């Protein structure tokens, strides 16, 4: 009964209130000075853009870390060309990277990419900017919390970067920070935990805001089954963030106490380090950390990929000029994915000796969770069938997402089965697998989203030629980077080798691939310069859009002025139809906006 009321189209937004907001905000906007309008703004679009630009910078920084690391893997023991001297003797003695610094780079690359780059981009930036517009809301439900969320995120990011300058350097125990190694690491690890607490707080504020906004601020007639798929992906993602992050915070608190006041939560009895027994009370459990960490860690994967799927769904529907195939099925699948993602975490721990019964359970749930992902991917493929596809830049990125995500997902199956995982665990195969999910697929979805929504907020399109010049080499080099890793991993190359596996005779056949991967990674970095140039040039010189809806789209974010004012909509949108009514038979044009009577 309650559910029925929830999805019935009787969601009435009082007209007076909403129009009042618009008038108020217009007067209000003029009064705001520069600082309140662009820096300490409570407007969801400004906050989203702040999130986006900051996260893109972090993404570039995290990418730069791995570019330096790849030198050591390709040419172990050789001085890094001009950068080696800049790093100083503590990090690179005589220009040759030290093992400690190599470990710092590895741990911080993972942390920065996941927590400071990708998640803030898909949730903080795209979620913040696009979601309220798509549901016809004037802003997020709690604008001040939204602003706080950004500033806490920035503080966390600065803390993380700052940890490089701590004595002993940044965190160096991998992005997973497994104890007892992480408990014994230098002070950078403590700073890492503090940074994580900021980031967890920030994402908590953001996620609560997203859920409340979607439930409470939908426009009149915007029922749950009329929500664009992107909004659904944000809703499920926000629930994952609210429920999965706190256990990591708990784990962080425990590790902080272990490190600072000498408790033994993660320290087993009788631990001997460098021949010396440790002076601790003992009785702790190292597996406890892994359970708490991966309880966040696995939903985190879906936090990253679900909004990516949402972005791709929007772009696909718009550029095939036909409705998404199986919208309802996709919605049910994504909700199911959200639930099941909470009970698959220990497939990261098959090798810990936790027992066959537990392994069997987590192996089964892992096989089950692949089903809804495949359903969504299949729906994308069928959506293409019979469409008159427009091959513009956003569409190219969205199309590339499908095979790239398929490779990433399917190569994950052998890792989800305990028997094969025991061989593949911690090899380059794992690196190849999850990078296919987050790099060529998710980052392509992000690029697609940037190319797609750029005109709405700047009034100019990104250059198409430069866009294609960015896309094709990126696709090529991405595969050149990650495909060889499968071969290396199958040959048995461990992911944590400082010298790239030089000392192991059995790695002889695949060692040359290290150089190929490194050259490709550097080339990939060079290609991204085209994107940066395109972004900056188009901001000021790009082709101006002639309408508020340059892609002829149906969803509500395009039915606003360009750029949308504070308060978003000039007149209250009333939603009369589903999100993807393209090429409706008998309609006067090939798209019917959601708010069109």
């Amino acid at each position, binding site marked *: 009964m309650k559910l029925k009321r929830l999805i019935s189209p009787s969601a009435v937004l009082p007209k007076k209130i909403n129009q009042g907001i618009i008038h108020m905000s217009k007067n209000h906007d003029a009064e705001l000075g520069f600082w309140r309008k662009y820096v300490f703004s409570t407007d969801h679009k400004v906050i989203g853009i702040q999130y986006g630009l900051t996260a893109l910078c972090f993404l570039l920084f995290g990418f730069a870390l791995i570019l330096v690391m790849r030198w050591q893997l390709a040419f172990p023991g050789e001085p890094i060309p001009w950068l080696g001297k800049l790093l100083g003797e503590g990090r690179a003695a005589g220009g040759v990277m030290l093992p400690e610094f190599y470990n710092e780079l590895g741990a911080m690359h993972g942390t920065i990419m996941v927590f400071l780059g990708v998640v803030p981009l898909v949730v903080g930036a795209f979620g913040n900017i696009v979601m309220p517009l798509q549901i016809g809301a004037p802003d997020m439900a709690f604008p001040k919390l939204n602003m706080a969320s950004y500033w806490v995120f920035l503080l966390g990011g600065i803390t993380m970067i700052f940890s490089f300058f701590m004595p002993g350097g940044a965190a160096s125990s991998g992005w997973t920070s497994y104890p007892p190694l992480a408990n014994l690491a230098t002070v950078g690890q403590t700073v890492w935990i503090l940074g994580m607490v900021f980031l967890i707080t920030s994402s908590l504020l953001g996620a609560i805001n997203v859920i409340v906004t979607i439930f*409470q601020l939908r426009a009149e007639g915007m029922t749950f089954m009329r929500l664009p798929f992107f909004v659904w992906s944000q809703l499920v993602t926000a629930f994952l963030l609210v429920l999965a992050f706190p256990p990591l915070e708990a784990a962080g608190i425990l590790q902080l106490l272990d490190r600072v006041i000498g408790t033994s939560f993660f320290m087993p009895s009788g631990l001997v380090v460098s021949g010396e027994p440790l002076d601790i009370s003992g009785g702790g459990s190292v597996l406890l950390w892994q359970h*708490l960490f991966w309880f966040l860690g696995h939903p985190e994967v879906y936090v990253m990929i679900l909004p990516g799927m949402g972005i791709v769904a929007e772009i696909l529907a718009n550029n095939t000029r036909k409705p998404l195939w199986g919208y309802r099925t996709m919605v049910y699948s994504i909700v199911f994915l959200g639930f099941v993602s909470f009970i698959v975490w220990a497939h990261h721990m098959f090798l810990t000796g936790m027992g066959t019964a537990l392994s069997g359970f987590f192996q089964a749930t892992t096989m089950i969770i692949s089903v809804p992902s495949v359903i969504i991917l299949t729906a994308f493929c069928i959506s293409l069938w019979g469409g008159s596809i427009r091959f513009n830049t956003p569409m190219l990125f969205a199309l590339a997402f499908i095979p790239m995500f398929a490779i990433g997902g399917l190569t994950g199956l052998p890792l989800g089965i305990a028997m094969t995982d025991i061989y593949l665990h911690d090899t380059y195969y794992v690196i190849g697998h999850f990078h296919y999910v987050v790099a060529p697929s998710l980052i392509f979805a992000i690029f697609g989203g940037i190319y797609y929504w750029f005109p709405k907020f700047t009034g100019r399109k990104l250059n198409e030629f430069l866009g294609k010049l960015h896309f094709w080499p990126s696709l090529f080099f991405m595969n050149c980077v990650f495909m060889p890793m499968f071969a290396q991993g199958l040959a048995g190359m461990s992911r944590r080798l400082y010298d790239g596996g030089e000392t192991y005779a059995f790695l002889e056949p695949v060692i040359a691939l290290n150089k190929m991967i490194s050259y490709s990674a550097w080339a990939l970095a060079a290609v991204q310069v085209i994107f940066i140039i395109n972004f900056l040039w188009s901001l000021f010189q790009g082709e101006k859009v002639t309408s508020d809806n340059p892609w002829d789209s149906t969803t509500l974010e395009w039915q606003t002025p360009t750029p949308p004012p504070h308060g978003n909509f000039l007149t209250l949108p009333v939603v009369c139809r589903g999100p993807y009514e393209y090429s409706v038979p008998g309609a006067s044009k090939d798209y019917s906006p959601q708010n069109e009577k």
Partner: protein
Amino acid sequence: MLIPYTVKPREDTGMYNAKLGIWLFLASEVMLFGGLFSAYVILRVGAGDAWPVGASILNVPIGAFNTLLLITSSLTMVFSWIALKQKNLDKFKRNMGITILLALAFLVIKGFEYNAKFSHQMFPSKSTFLAIYFTLTGLHALHIIGGIIVNAYFWGPGRKMWYSDPERFTNRIEIAGLYWHFVDLVWIFLFPVLYLL
């Protein structure tokens, strides 16, 4: 910027924004304490017979008295909300005042308890039981302090809103009350788990 449904509930969800917000926040808090309780379970199962009985280390009567204090404070918290519904600001001030005092009393007693442990060289680094005891009760005490700050604000300067927007102020007390009940509830789990089992 004026956001719809900050005072009146939305018709189809039956909630105003802040109420949904606080429930979600409490859900995340359940997961935070849930994580720590799981840690307790795993550590205890791992320790086997070496795990001490709580009562042999901790002072049960003091813990029970503190439980009583918190339950009473939950009650006065509800009374203060009811008082606002009855448009009786004096009764609100009285009940909210008692709530804050009870919470402060809880902290003072907890402080004496901590002090007694420290004076016997019982630090968190001495055993895993003491470590999880201090972590759980310490985090809970931080939540109590947060609750006292919020309640004191509504009792003092925040009360001004009653004259300009009484309905919204009443909602704020309801929200603060939901949080306070949660903090109370956490203690009701903590007390038997740490002191009695």
